[in-house]
């Protein structure tokens, strides 16, 4: 009840306590609490952003897959038409070649046939002549019988 010097001592103590709290207790605690609050806020913001990013990435990947599919289809289509064309071309070439080979073979054959016929003719004529000569071993004028020979030759030709 009686006021005395305790008052002064207590005022000094109070001053020191407040000073200590002001310098060493309050600021670090408040700063740490604010830091955590910021961290939580940042974390929430980040997670929201990443969720958005995931959606975006999904959309993008879908689009890429779609593009790739259509691209592949296009390539396959071109390849198909290309191969068809090549087959067509080679078919045409082959048939042309075939015709050419057949034709050349035909002309060769024709030529051979003509040649053979000529040779045959010649050989046949001479052999006939020799045979005739042998058969008619008398002197026969060539001119007299030429007509006959010619006639048989014509028959032969027919």
């Amino acid at each position, binding site marked *: *009840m*009686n*006021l*005395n*010097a*305790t*008052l*002064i*001592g*207590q*005022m000094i*103590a*109070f*001053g020191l*306590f*407040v000073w*200590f*709290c*002001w310098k*060493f*207790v*309050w*600021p*670090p*605690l*408040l700063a*740490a*609490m604010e*830091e*955590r609050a910021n*961290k939580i806020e940042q974390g929430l913001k980040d997670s929201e952003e990443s969720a958005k990013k995931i959606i975006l990435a999904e959309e993008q990947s879908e689009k890429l897959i779609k593009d790739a599919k259509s691209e592949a289809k296009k390539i396959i289509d071109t390849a198909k038409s290309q191969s068809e064309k090549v087959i067509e071309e080679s078919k045409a070439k082959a048939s042309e070649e075939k015709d050419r080979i057949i034709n050349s073979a035909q002309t060769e054959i024709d030529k051979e046939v003509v040649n053979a016929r000529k040779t045959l003719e010649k050989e046949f004529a001479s052999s006939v002549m020799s045979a005739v000569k042998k058969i008619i071993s008398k002197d026969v004028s060539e001119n007299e019988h030429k007509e006959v020979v010619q006639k048989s030759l014509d028959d032969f030709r027919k």
Partner: protein
Amino acid sequence: MAAPSSERTFQEYLEHHLQNLVYGKLPEGYERKLADGSTTVLENDTWTIAKGKAEVAEMGFWAFHIDTLFFSLLLGGAFLFVFARAARSFSLTKPSKLQLFVELLIDFINDTVKSTFKTAKNSLIAPMALTIFSWVLLMNLMDLVPVDLIPYPAELLGVPYLKVVPTTDLNLTASLALSVFILYLFFSIRSKGFIGFIKSITLHPFGPWMLPANLFVEVIDMLAKPLSLALRLYGNLYAGEMIFLLIAGMVAWQLTFSGIMIGIFGTILSLVWAIFHILIVVLQAFIFMMLTVVYMNMAHEKFEQH
């Protein structure tokens, strides 16, 4: 030293428990009455512990309440120790229970200060509010310690008087109120300027032609602040302590039927009062803090001509 409380009358018991442990100077030639009734005359000025009211009165202003100083410093130190530790080991991801408690309190103080102290920015206000609230609350809580739990063993150990609740000592509440008042004056003059401060206590509330009346009203108003702060806390806690003492003094614990019944009744009364007192203890700590913040807010207001 005579055996403690058991041989005292009710009156003596009360007086004994309301007496601080005072350390001060007794003058040369002072007659000390000893316990056995004889007296000794001091040959020199002596610094000693007062035994009885008369010696306390003789010591005058330059005496110290050892018990008040000891318990208040102990509790204030404990508060700062716990909070400084929480600050040092603060973990952002894995808070301890102690840290959560400290954070709760910091948040509570911070919100209260923010909602009340709006006129200016001052980094001192919030930590001061925290210190006042925690310290006063801890000191008030000493009131819930049973009244004889600490003084009785201390008396057996040779400590003649001991008051364990520092806030029942006017010296302590007045020291807090005075410190707050000094800060009030300091911040008032700093924010208004000296001239502005003088104007604020002379030109208010009636205008310049009523200067003496203004000065009178304003000075009364200003002095009422520390006075009400100091007396409110002191009065509440002193009264609370007094009721605990009255209940404790009533109970004699004699091994008769009526003695035991009175003992049980007193225990129940004491419990009821303690539970009610928890409210008062917290409320008074909060009011002291709140009013401090309000006064600081007023101190930072700029002077406005009305």
